[in-house]
């Protein structure tokens, strides 16, 4: 094994989720023909990551929304990682936004903060009431194991 490049590219949560979903769909299509079995370790990590991502903001994103957000933010000089975190975390309040952007006070004004939040809410629409109501029962078991 040889590592050619460690950081070939960064991926957003959405891209990872799309890849895993694709992979799974493709596999299920093949499973009907009964030609493939899935490795245990892949299934585990796939399940864990999908469980995590399905509760994160990327679950409702689409390529069009992400492109729109990127264009809308092009007027601000943001670093790539800051944009990526905005995409992954989808900040809703100023305190969250200031967290992901370094030295916000020196680089931007509070007006642009409001503007950024508006852009985020517009480009990545999301029904938040639904999000809050979601509960997952699968987690509890693992908590017990961890505590024991």
């Amino acid at each position, binding site marked *: 094994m040889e590592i*050619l*490049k460690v950081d070939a*590219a960064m991926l957003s949560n959405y891209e*990872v989720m799309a*890849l895993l979903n694709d992979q799974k769909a493709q596999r299920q299509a093949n499973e009907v023909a009964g030609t493939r079995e899935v*490795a245990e370790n*892949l299934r585990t990590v796939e399940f864990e990551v999908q469980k995590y991502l399905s509760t994160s903001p990327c679950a409702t994103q689409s390529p069009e929304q992400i492109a729109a957000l990127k264009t809308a933010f092009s007027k601000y000089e943001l670093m790539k990682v800051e944009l990526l*975190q905005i995409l992954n975390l989808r900040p809703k309040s100023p305190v969250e936004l200031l*967290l992901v952007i370094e030295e916000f006070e020196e680089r931007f004004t509070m007006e642009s903060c409001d503007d950024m939040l508006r852009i985020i809410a517009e480009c990545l629409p999301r029904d938040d009431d639904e999000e809050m109501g979601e509960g997952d029962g699968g*987690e509890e078991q693992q908590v017990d194991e961890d505590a024991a």
Partner: protein
Amino acid sequence: MFNLAEIKDTIKIEPSGFRKKKSQAITDEINRKYANKVLQDIGLCIAMHDILYASEGFIHHGDGCSYVTVHFRMVIFRPFVGEILTGKIRSCNPDGVRGFFDDIFIPYSYLQENSEFNAQEQVWVWMYDENEMFMDLDEDIRFRVESEMFFDTSPSVRPKKEGVDTPDLSANSAKQAPYSLTCSIHGDGLGLFSWWGT
């Protein structure tokens, strides 16, 4: 949080895999070999992203398997230092708080100021303006990555526990995660979602 790493490796395809398409067989083999494994100083492998190049298959003398040199890209979980992540609290103990991927840990010095450990409830409490903010299990939490650590778990360097000699190899080894993150929730906006009304 996720990134891609380019890797070159020789993949062995067993004869039973010959009925599959070549790309499928390679993908399956790579995923079986790498998925959910930690590569030293690279991160945790999730799944194969795509194949960049694959050579012809070679069959060695006395062996029915086909060996293919493959350049491929792997999806890696590796948050950078300073990145903000979200997760759920798995457990609390007097040393600190444990996060969602098993090996994310927040030591008590990185909790919000004036945090105390409630021994009765076995959780940490943030004393803020005389309000007691409990950090209950399973709560959503937002935190910043402070440092990362890789630990080589290959058998040769694994420290042996003194005075323990059982045939079970896993019992002899120190339980140390190969890749762990130290995080903090010390700062505005960090901590439970409910603290910040989001």
